[in-house]
């Protein structure tokens, strides 16, 4: 059948029929399967999951495999769209892509797009979560996630930070860094200053809209995307740098996706501060000088890692007469080329730091709990994920977790207040630890 790779649920009938339940959406890449936990010295099943929703819920409807059966049942009328548990199963999904990447290790199914399309389909049928609707309305009205005054959005800019009126590099700050975690914005800005990279800010930066996308509000997201895209293009920026994983993913991947273009057609490059800073480090423009004697671990936020490969639109047929081949062949986004090494390079370059890997890292990373609108609608599930990620870091004796995403930072800091740890005492954004030591 002919179709586009988009967010129309009908295009994922094939996925809903071709999952055979291998559990890589549950446990990820088997090559990285965890064994004995180093501190506890025993097998701890809790560290094996890559799907936090499924880990929380335990029954199979909470995971991608169950979701394929669920979607199939909706297609054939075995289940009604009205069933509240249909909605709950869909909206408790973090859209972290662990299932997608796990599945694509060995197969070619578009599980994340299928999941996401389910959310879109539910919203279109009037089954959006009220929590999401409320926040989206707030974003539309105020221009930011928190419903705060846009006028104070740039208050994070302190006197020591130099911002240009016009530059090739645009720093897209994002709502969370602007309002809740200004230290991240400041650290990012200082990195650019220290490296001698002039940068500008958007005149009126509004929310990138990622929550709209994550929660299936496609119509609203397209409006936000078009508007922000236009502003960025008008600014003349050649490179957009961001420290927020969700802004990064939204600009680089979701905007082109919903606007039917390729990432390469944006007209500018979107980079994460970790990528940018590592390049500066390699060019000798940034060098860590301060020693930091600490054992740290790096949390691969999905938005910066496995989900950040450029978007490539596709349209064609699945030729049922020819073994279901896609024609033309599609380039699959499997999470291979996520931003994994640059943050690690930055960390390893800091004198005195010891980097340890957790069980679940790179494409196989466990989610930290903010994504898919889950925190907003089902905070207990979001906290559950964050708590387990923190426990994992503690199992490896890390004293700090470093993350590239402000949302992860928020979740892990919250977990630190709930969970008793032996070693973990701090959560850094990658920009903070780089700024602190350079």
């Amino acid at each position, binding site marked *: 059948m002919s179709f586009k790779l988009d967010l129309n649920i009908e295009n994922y*009938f094939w996925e809903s029929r071709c999952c055979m339940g291998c559990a890589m959406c549950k446990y990820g890449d088997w090559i990285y399967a965890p*064994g*004995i936990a180093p501190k506890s010295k025993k097998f701890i099943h809790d560290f094996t999951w890559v799907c936090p929703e499924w880990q929380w819920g335990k029954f*199979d409807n909470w995971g991608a495999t*169950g979701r394929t059966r669920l979607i199939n049942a909706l297609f054939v009328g075995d289940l009604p769209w009205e069933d509240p548990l249909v909605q709950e199963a869909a909206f408790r999904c973090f859209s972290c892509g662990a299932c997608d990447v796990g599945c694509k290790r060995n197969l070619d199914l578009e599980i994340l797009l299928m999941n996401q399309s389910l959310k879109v389909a539910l919203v279109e049928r009037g089954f959006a979560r009220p929590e999401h609707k409320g926040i989206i309305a707030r974003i539309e009205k105020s221009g930011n996630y928190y419903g705060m005054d846009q006028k104070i959005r740039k208050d994070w800019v302190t006197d020591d930070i130099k911002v240009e009126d016009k530059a090739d590099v645009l720093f897209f700050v994002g709502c969370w860094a602007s309002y809740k975690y200004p230290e991240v914005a400041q650290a990012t800005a200082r990195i650019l200053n220290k490296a001698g990279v002039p940068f500008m800010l958007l005149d009126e930066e509004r929310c990138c809209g990622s929550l709209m996308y994550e929660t299936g509000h496609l119509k609203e997201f397209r409006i936000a995307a078009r508007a922000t895209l236009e502003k960025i293009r008008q600014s003349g920026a050649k490179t957009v740098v961001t420290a927020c994983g969700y802004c990064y993913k939204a600009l680089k991947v979701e905007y082109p996706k919903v606007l039917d273009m390729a990432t390469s057609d944006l007209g500018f490059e979107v980079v994460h501060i970790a990528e940018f800073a590592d390049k500066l480090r390699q060019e000798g423009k940034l060098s860590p000088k301060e020693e930091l004697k600490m054992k740290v671990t790096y949390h691969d936020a999905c938005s910066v890692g496995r989900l950040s490969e450029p978007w490539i639109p596709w349209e064609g047929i699945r030729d049922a007469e*020819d073994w279901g081949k896609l024609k033309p062949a599609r380039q699959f986004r499997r999470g291979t080329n996520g931003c994994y090494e640059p943050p690690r390079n930055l960390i390893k370059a800091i004198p005195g730091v010891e980097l340890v890997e957790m069980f679940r890292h790179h494409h196989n990373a466990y989610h930290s709990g903010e994504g898919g609108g889950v925190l907003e609608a089902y905070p207990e599930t979001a906290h559950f994920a964050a708590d387990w990620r923190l426990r994992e870091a503690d199992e490896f004796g890390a004293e700090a977790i470093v993350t590239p995403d402000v949302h992860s930072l928020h979740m892990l800091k919250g977990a630190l207040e709930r969970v008793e740890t032996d070693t973990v005492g701090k959560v850094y954004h990658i920009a903070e630890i780089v700024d602190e030591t350079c």
Partner: protein
Amino acid sequence: MAYKEKPMLSTEEMKEKLRQLRAQPYWWDMPEEAYRELEAVVGPDKISREKVVRQAYVGRGYARELIWFSGQAYPPCCVIQPETTEEVAEIVRICNKYHLPFNPCSSQWAYNANPRFRPDQVQIDLQRMQDVVIDKKNLYARVEAGVRYGHFCQACFDNDCYFINTGGGSASCIIANHTVWGCSPFNYRMGNPERRVMAVTWISPEGDIVRTGSWAGRETTAEDGFWGDGLGPNLNGIWRGHIGWFGAMGIVTEMTVKIFPFIENAKEAMVPEGVTPDSHTAFKTNRVQWQNIKLPSRKALEDFMYAFSHCQIGAAITKVPVFWRVIAKAKDKEDFWERWSGVTKDDIENFHMARVLLIGFTNEKQMEYERAVLDELRQEFGGEFTRTKPSDESWFKNADTSGMWMMTNGYSSCEAGQECLRCTYETGKKLGKLLWEKYTPPFMAEYGDPGWFQSNDFGHSSYLEFLVYMNVDKCDPLSPYYDPGYVQGMIGWYFEETPTIDAETGFLDFFPASCHGIMFQGPYFSDYQVWVDRFKEEFDPRTVSNPPAPYDPEWITEMLPPFMLNKSRRFLRTIKRGKSMLLQ
């Protein structure tokens, strides 16, 4: 056939199709009293009769193309997730009390793990049972029902041991797999699956807790599970033979399994590396190596496999189907087909490659010795070493799993079993020939490839598995490209011709015992169905343990839709269930 655009079926059209296929109403509500009793066992959080939850357990795993698509798959009436053996036993007793069929599952990788033909099964989902305790010194481990190979294999490395990772694969649960299957090239040194099983806690179909092996008569299973023989006869023989009952003979909740000495500091020698889809386990190649050897002829390959095995070197020797090698190189389905379309029958007929695993268990010098012997063998048989990656993407941790479906999204193994190498050679050849000459199409062209086979027990026996690939759209009544004639074209292969080859060559195939061929195989392999019936009647008198597994031909002929079994339905009715050879 040229592509023709056809629109997706509407919901109404799909509903109508399913109405015709399904013999029963899809949803069934269980008695309230029974639900409450089950809920009291595990608590309200570990049981659900919500339709969304139940739907997740439909038609999973292997052979979904034939089972789920044909309307055989139904949701359970509830899903329950016990955490202890005592809970499982109580659940089974309640099911007996209410004559509710139950279906135990863990990985749900096997086709019988979810309800077939009936919507009234209680799905006992054992995935919360995740305990693993390893006794490195005494080379065994205690595992619970939910533990999967991938995790357990790493836990073994962490203890300088290793374990099998069954073909197709890491997702399987160790207990489930050892109750029904359990083969891997590592059987070469590790032996038959049933001998890897030691002490077991078995919940009989009536809900009795029976402990076997060195757990028999003991107060606790916390220790003492070091040995697997019986107190006299070994009762493990009830619930698993050449193949298992697929949940039709009670439930095993925990077992001790043998683990095998590997190399010292195995964790550092077996390092996961790389990013998907190229992640792999990198070896310290002075102690662990795969090596591919190309042989000049089929005979040379066959003789080489025997000779290698008799030298008692290596940790595995296997010959894989050529298309697996192409899958391993292909980046996606389309890439596979681009490579595969260039293959000819001559290529397959002239391609004879063995893959061996060498492990310097004792020391590096052992590796040197084994390589020297391997090289001597290579020269003797005119072979040639070919480039081999110093890493593993399959047998140690990943084991293919869903990758086997990459080519067409529709696959099944139609033949799997153990006999001597000669028997597997000859049987594989016949199957390859039959597939190519008569059943291509409907199946994917394999150009006469004789299947996957390997040596077991240092050449004393071997394993053969034969895989076929089908067009998923043509099998799927819900696809606009569905073709009932296509499915009919496969029936003869599964139900008549491959079992006949087994009867001729004497190859003891798993499948006749579990599903399609049993009614045909009986007269050819003693009269074991008589015993299957007797055991089933004795130990599951109410027939509540996953009916109709392992088989029930009368039920199957009634339940399967007409298009599925028109021809074989007649054949089924003419075949007598096996009678005792003496009492006929």
